[in-house]
């Protein structure tokens, strides 16, 4: 029986130690954020944050998660709030910007885009377009929605700066 901290809740699973985290998230917890795309860590649809770092859950065995904290899309608002010292909102600035830009088509890539985009913005709230492209390059979109996603990440960063949100003040407060 393994214990894993997911979205600040400790869960127990009797899944085999080599089971990739993705199957625990989708089948046992029935979460809809992380989702199967390739099983090869090539596309980013299964991404989660492990201690704040974007990680492919399709190739991460649950045995590797002892003592670590997993955040899925379902927990992204709480994670963002804790990281920035803000109250928990219904959505993050990035999610709002993605809706405003009507940036998606099928939206299946969105889990990974939001997880990776959040990691980027918390590290660098004012990324250049080139920095966004580099950071997001490991996340694929078959529908070709990259241009609006880039704009949404820029917009979200601008909003964070306007609101005086910086990752540092959050980290200090949560430390």
């Amino acid at each position, binding site marked *: 029986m393994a214990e894993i901290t997911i979205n600040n809740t400790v869960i127990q699973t009797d899944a085999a130690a080599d089971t990739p985290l993705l199957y625990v998230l*989708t089948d046992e917890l029935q979460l809809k954020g992380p989702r199967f795309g390739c099983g*090869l860590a090539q596309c980013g649809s299964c991404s989660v944050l492990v201690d704040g770092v974007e990680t492919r859950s399709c190739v991460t065995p649950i045995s590797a998660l002892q003592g670590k904290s997993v955040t899925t899309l379902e927990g992204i608002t709480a994670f963002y709030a804790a990281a920035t010292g803000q109250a928990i909102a219904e959505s993050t600035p990035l999610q709002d910007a993605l809706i405003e830009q*009507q940036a998606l*088509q099928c939206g299946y890539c969105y889990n990974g885009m939001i997880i990776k985009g959040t990691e980027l913005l918390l590290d660098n709230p004012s990324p250049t377009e080139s920095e966004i492209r580099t950071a997001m390059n490991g*996340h694929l979109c078959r529908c*070709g929605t990259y241009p609006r996603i880039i704009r949404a990440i820029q917009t979200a960063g601008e909003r964070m700066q306007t609101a005086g949100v910086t990752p540092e003040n959050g980290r200090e407060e949560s430390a």
Partner: protein
Amino acid sequence: MSTMKPFLPIRRRDLLKGSGALVVSFAFHPVVSAQSRSPVAGPPDPEQIDSWIAIHNDNTATVYIGFAELGQGCSTALLQVAAEELDLAMNQVSTVGLDTHITPNQGGTYSSSAMRRGGPQVQRAAAEARQALLQMAAVQFRVPAESLLVSNGVVSTLDDPARSVTYGQLIGNQLFNQPFTGNAPLKDPSTYSIVATPYPRNDIPLKAAGTYSYIQHMRLPGMLHGRIVRPRGQGAYRDGVQVISIDESSISNIPGARVLRMGNFVGVVAEREWDAVRAAGQLDVEWNQPENLPGNDNLFQQMENGHTNERIALEEGDVSAFDNAAIQSQFNGTGPYQAHVPFAPNCALADVRSDSALVMCSTQDVYNTRTSIANLLGMEADQVRVQYHEAAGTFGHSCWDDVAQAAALLSSMAGQPVRVQLMRWDEHGWDTYGPAHIGKARVAADSQGKLVSYEYEGWQHHWSLIETSEQTAKGTPAAEWPPFPAQQINPLTLGGMYDIPNRFLLNHHVPGLDYLKGAWLRSPVDLSFAFVSEQAIDDLAYQSGLDPWHFRQRNITDYHWRDVLDAAANAANWEPRVAAVNASQSGIVRGRGIGLGTHLASYGGAVAEIEVNIQTGEVRILHLVGAIDAGLVVNTSNVENQLIGQLVQTASRMLLEEVTFNTQHVTSLDWASYPILRFEQCPEVTPVIVQRLDEAPSGAGEEVMAAAAAAIANAFFDATGKRMTMYPFTPDRVKRALTV
């Protein structure tokens, strides 16, 4: 989570009572709720208003739509059409998921048909429902219907606005019981307030929140997880798959997993998904997979030299005019097999019982899939219920029917519901690919730059009719679709935009059973057609000493084509000059190109700006402009998004995408061996809509791709003075082209 009770007797009128609940259960709950069940096999009678529109007590409406939300936003746009004609606000209308027991049969969602075919049907049904509602109000108020006003579903009299009644009060939760004649008058387009606006899509907030349910999220009580076991990568379509032997002891360390087999169809099922994944990977199967493919190296040689079936697609005038023309050009080119490869591999669930079957999948045509599943299971069509749930964007016929059949087969053998999730290599390796193409163009212009002759010959095979699951399980022989035009050379993209007195189009059907499986891939084969045809046209402009935009203008009188051509050029700030005057063979060179093309309707024009690294052969696409005339554009934001997607996908297909295979099997099995465009390679894109409020919607899902492919190819010539004869423009291929 609620428990499913299949086939609970509930009728449409009972559904009406559960106002809104039906919508919620379909759209948001991964388990199908009892309320959504009907004992009556579909389709609902399309000749009745009630099959299209239901008005609820709370003055909202449910619109029953027979088209699939594929991420293109049609579920929002079709509601815009309905709300507009009904005089309801967008928050008063909703729809339900496609289901052969609930939604009317509007045919499949392909060929950009949702707005083109579906829009007018939904529009007329909504107009007729509104007319019936006004008639009811007229009777109640004892006034002529013409003296009534409607706003947000509240009907009032012209002379006394205080006398009012809502749609919900007039008919809420009751049936219209009126035939759908299609004769109700439609609104004047100049009064539209919802149609032709960028109304935000209904599905996007849920998708951004991560609460949207895709087919991959669906679960059935008591289900097993299934995986198909096949060789990695398909061989020749005719051969299918042959099992020599299976060693079941090879998975004995996975106690939860079992092997299920019917003929040469092999699968594994397990209660835990990871057990199914492991077992499918670990099961030791000896396959007979003959070496019957040409391989990439001999593909085009075999296609051209083997037996083919000829059909004249178009013959006008006399193309011997070529012989004496002042300017002549002959250009041959080829396009590769390309894959659909949806971002999520296809998935389906089935619950097959002795006398009925439920199949949940992401088919683009629930009624057609119902027929194929019924045939597979030996049932009558009305014993089979097929539900659509959205998957990742598929852009044509990927493995959705194959996986639905696999789920049905595994459930029938397991005696339990089964969910089948394809693995990445299944989707990449067993796709029905967009067929490869050989094109030969022979075109000529007079000394004034007027086109006088156009000939095109094209070689490709048809689409595959029999899915691999059926082929392997039942031994059904491989077969191609009958020879209808959509699989063959396209007279619209092949010179159809120009005024040419003499034109001859010859289609060579390559019998497809000795090749890879094929099907329609977004803008089917049009990229290859335009790649060849528009390079030949471009060469005439070059030889004539004319700017390629101006050359095309001289040869177009149709205002649709003229407008998309000009719209693309103007948006790109095109400055006229002859192509390749700045071409260079060293360093990093830039070029720009223009092109036209479409699929079966609508009109596409595009301009590309690219950069070629002469030394490394690397091509970057810097900017793509795509202009479309798709008649009335109902939702401008959706269509702009479609254009963005088409341009980015065309960049991907022109630079990177090629199915690779040796003489035995496909070898491009994942995103490393079949790469697609990434963030860092993504060009700037400019979508342009030529809006036509007074023309019917003609489809906007794929019609600028051919033009964009042509523009990219012509930009390469402008940059280098050399022409590419095959895509994708990989560095090796580019370097070879530069040394010719």
